């Protein structure tokens, strides 16, 4: 039994390792980006994942999974290693949780096109605010998939967010965030 358990674990880890993206070790040309979302009118009450898309990176390395933190009356999605180039929020994944979570993941897909919402053209290394938004779910009946609208809203202050990021950042990105804080 012990042998089979080890074998299953080995197979599991091998499969999962194939899912891992390329790890960023050199942050010297990488930027910090964050976006804040409110889910009061959206399906789900907890953000469980999200991603940014860089439109200058080749396919296969253009998607950057975000960190997620419950922040104020919403959620902060952030990444410490965004490359230069046009970058936008790609997805926000939510679930409905009250203690335990349901079995549905709602994926709010912001699409590949357009720079009006949660998009920044990163021209030099820095800390970039992609904005604060409220996601509003819309029902289209039983036979059509639901859609959603996005409204600009007031989120937590920039200082609050940068102080959180400063505490969470790695050593290479901390000076960058500290400099942004000092400018406030």
């Amino acid at each position, binding site marked *: 039994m012990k042998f089979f358990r080890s074998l299953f674990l080995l197979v599991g880890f091998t499969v999962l390792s194939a899912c891992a993206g390329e790890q960023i070790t050199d942050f010297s040309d990488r930027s910090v980006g964050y976006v804040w979302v409110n889910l009061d009118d959206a399906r789900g009450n907890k953000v469980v994942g999200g991603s940014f898309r860089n*439109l200058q990176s*080749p*396919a*296969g390395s*253009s998607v950057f999974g975000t960190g997620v933190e419950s922040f104020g009356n919403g959620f902060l999605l952030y990444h410490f290693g965004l490359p230069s*180039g*046009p970058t*936008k929020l790609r997805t926000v994944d939510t679930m409905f949780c009250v203690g335990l979570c349901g079995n549905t993941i709602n994926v709010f*897909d912001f*699409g*590949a*096109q*357009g*720079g*009006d919402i949660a*998009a920044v*053209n990163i021209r030099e290394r820095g800390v970039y605010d992609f904005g604060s938004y409220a996601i509003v779910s819309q029902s289209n009946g039983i*036979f059509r998939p639901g859609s959603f609208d996005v409204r600009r809203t007031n989120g937590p202050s920039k200082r609050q967010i940068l102080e959180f990021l400063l505490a969470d950042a790695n050593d290479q990105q901390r000076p960058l965030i500290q400099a942004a804080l000092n400018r406030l």
Partner: protein
Amino acid sequence: MAVFKTLKLVAVAVICTALSACIPSTDTVADDVSRRQDRVILVGSFEITPRIPQDLNVRRSVMRPTEELLFGSAQDFAGNRLVTGFQPFGTRVQRTIYSTPFAGATHSVPLDELFFIEVDRTAIQLQPGQYFLSDAGVDTITLPGGLVTATHPSAQVVYVGAVRYRRDDFLAITDVQVVDQFSQAAAAARSRFGPEVTIAKSL
């Protein structure tokens, strides 16, 4: 048991036939001018400027050869191509809940190349198009349609211009122009259909 087997085969055949109707036509090159008076060949081209770098494009075929045979290859729609439709002006695509977004007179047209598509001899309206950033069909860019091409009573070939979509850094279309490149298109049409072919311009 034999009855169930036959029924199963019939059901599979019906489903495959129904699904095959969802596949858009990729035939964008008419080989010969139509002998029918009510048909005409549209000639033109599409371009997106600046061009979309092809390393942004994901092309990984996940279909087996038999699936490709039955349902068509997603490769036909990914890449530097525009999936759009040429619909008689004033008509509407009939859709059901089973329709794919491409239902109707739809073609997968390579960008930056001339297309030669046979249509009814009537005013034709260009439908909104889609550019696929992946062959999974999840990342798409929408291109506006609406351009109406007037009919011509007798020409065998009608030149409709080079439709130039200008985009910004975030792949949003900011401007659409129809550029007149008639001389090149006419030369290509004569080379394809013969020197006697009659060509009209309708921009």
